[in-house]
């Protein structure tokens, strides 16, 4: 066995150890490399910039914890953008575990110890404001302030449950739920996850079906996102945007080219691009986890490319391409 053959028969546990080091070290020594947003991600951001309190969007947490590292920053970034612009958000989940991840995303955005957090005002907490007959976003906030509330330091604003957000949660056979919501949201979701009646919510009064909604962003780790195109975009012309894992992103460029979706966040890179746009737009002061994660991905990609190059050099320099197979442990 020559040196090249020995190299190719390297115990794979050494490679595991090295990739582990490569993934951990950048967290402690961030590189902070600049990320240039692509037109696919900027398309979603620009579309959101044109929306406001009179609009409404759906955000689908259509993934499970397996793809949490890639998908969760996308969900957080979209919610941050919507909350900051007071765009009402209906939150749904295609899969049961997605509901918990949506809940975790809200927790991140309303965490009082973090920068740029939002103060979540539960449905029951602002009942008195509703009883005074206020339904417009600006009026609700003015009445809330008049009631003696003020924004704490580092807080970006209030999120009024029922006016700024409706956490609808998971429904089985979700493709049918999308179809049903093309006629009426409350036919599928009479109550939100906390048991509040959606029909009583001010945000529902202006947006009774998907036909009244301006955008559906599906953050997906499976082909769930296609249901939004099939039943939302194609049936009623609902604008749809995707946030998908990197391995899935290649499958969905065809939807961008055909104009069926307005944009796509692909993998951690897509989430980091959106975070960059949010920072440039002044919606947050510090980057999110995707931006930090891109340092790890940069180094990991370089390391894997080096492995491929070294592997090929060893393979050809050692004349192993002429042998039928290598010996030893694989």
């Amino acid at each position, binding site marked *: 066995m020559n040196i090249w053959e020995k190299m190719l028969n390297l115990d794979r546990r050494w490679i595991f150890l090295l990739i582990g080091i490569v993934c951990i070290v950048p967290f402690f020594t961030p590189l902070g490399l*600049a990320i240039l947003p692509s037109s696919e991600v900027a398309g979603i951001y620009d579309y959101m910039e044109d929306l406001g309190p009179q609009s409404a969007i759906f955000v689908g947490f259509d993934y499970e914890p397996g793809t949490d590292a890639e998908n969760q920053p996308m969900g957080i970034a979209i919610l941050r953008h919507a909350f900051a612009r007071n765009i009402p958000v209906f939150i749904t989940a295609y899969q049961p575990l997605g509901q918990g991840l949506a809940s975790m995303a809200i927790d991140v955005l309303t965490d009082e110890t973090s920068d740029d957090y939002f103060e979540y005002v539960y449905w029951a907490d602002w009942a008195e404001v509703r009883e005074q007959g206020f339904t417009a976003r600006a009026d609700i906030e003015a009445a809330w302030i008049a009631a003696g509330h003020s924004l704490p330091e580092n807080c970006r604003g209030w999120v009024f449950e029922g006016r700024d957000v409706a956490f609808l949660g998971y429904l089985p056979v979700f493709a049918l739920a999308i179809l049903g919501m093309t006629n009426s949201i409350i036919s599928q979701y009479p109550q939100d996850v906390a048991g509040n009646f959606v029909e009583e919510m001010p945000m529902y009064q202006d947006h009774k079906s998907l036909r009244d909604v301006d955008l559906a962003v599906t953050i997906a780790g499976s082909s769930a996102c296609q249901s939004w195109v099939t039943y939302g975009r194609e049936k009623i012309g609902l604008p749809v945007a995707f946030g998908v894992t990197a391995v899935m992103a290649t499958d969905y460029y065809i939807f961008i080219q055909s104009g069926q979706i307005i944009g796509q966040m692909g993998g951690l890179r897509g989430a980091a691009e959106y975070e960059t746009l949010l920072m440039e737009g002044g919606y947050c002061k510090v980057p999110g986890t995707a931006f930090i994660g891109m340092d790890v991905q940069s180094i990991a*990609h370089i390391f894997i490319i080096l492995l491929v190059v070294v592997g090929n050099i060893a393979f050809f320099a050692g004349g192993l391409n002429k042998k039928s197979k290598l010996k030893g442990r694989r």
Partner: protein
Amino acid sequence: MVGGILFIIQYFIPHQYSQTLFDYYMEWAPVIAAFALILGVGSLTRLHSHKIKRRAENWQYSYAALIPLFLMPFFALVLPESFGGGILSTMGGTRTTQGVFDFAYMNIQVPIQATMFSLLAFYIASAAFRAFRAKSALATVLLLTAVIVMLGQVPVGDLIGKWFPKIGLWILRYPNTAAKRAIALGVGFGILATQLKIIFGVERNWLGGAGE
């Protein structure tokens, strides 16, 4: 067959009667789906109970499947809130601390699933070293494309060469789109043909028969 044809036609008829029919279907479909849950839980319980009874290979792991299967719904639906029961997001702020269900979900289920997916990085690195070879012209094209797209996807690619992200995006937007569209069309026609065969009873394997 009647149901299948009916709902194909219904989709294209924007009439009140057609809509009423669809609304009925929308009410029925989740109910039918709920039975699948009963069937699934029943089947899983039976399978693992038998494994434990027969002391089949790796029977101990069946406990790991069965215990959480019943404990998680117990924590969420049965255990009183004063003992940490319930699901936090469904409580509308009446309780602000995590219950047992939320703790198990966030600290066990989420990390376990994320860890499983993360293992891919280790296996991909090992596989790239051992199997990604420029053995032929086509394999070389594949390898070069992979390297360009990988560098184009990360900010460090920008530092190495400004053209990496541009070429990487060009590959994704054009050659990739062309190939994916061809595949998507093929799959689409395949789905259409299979569904028509199922609706018209030509294909009956899904009923459990041999399809004769």
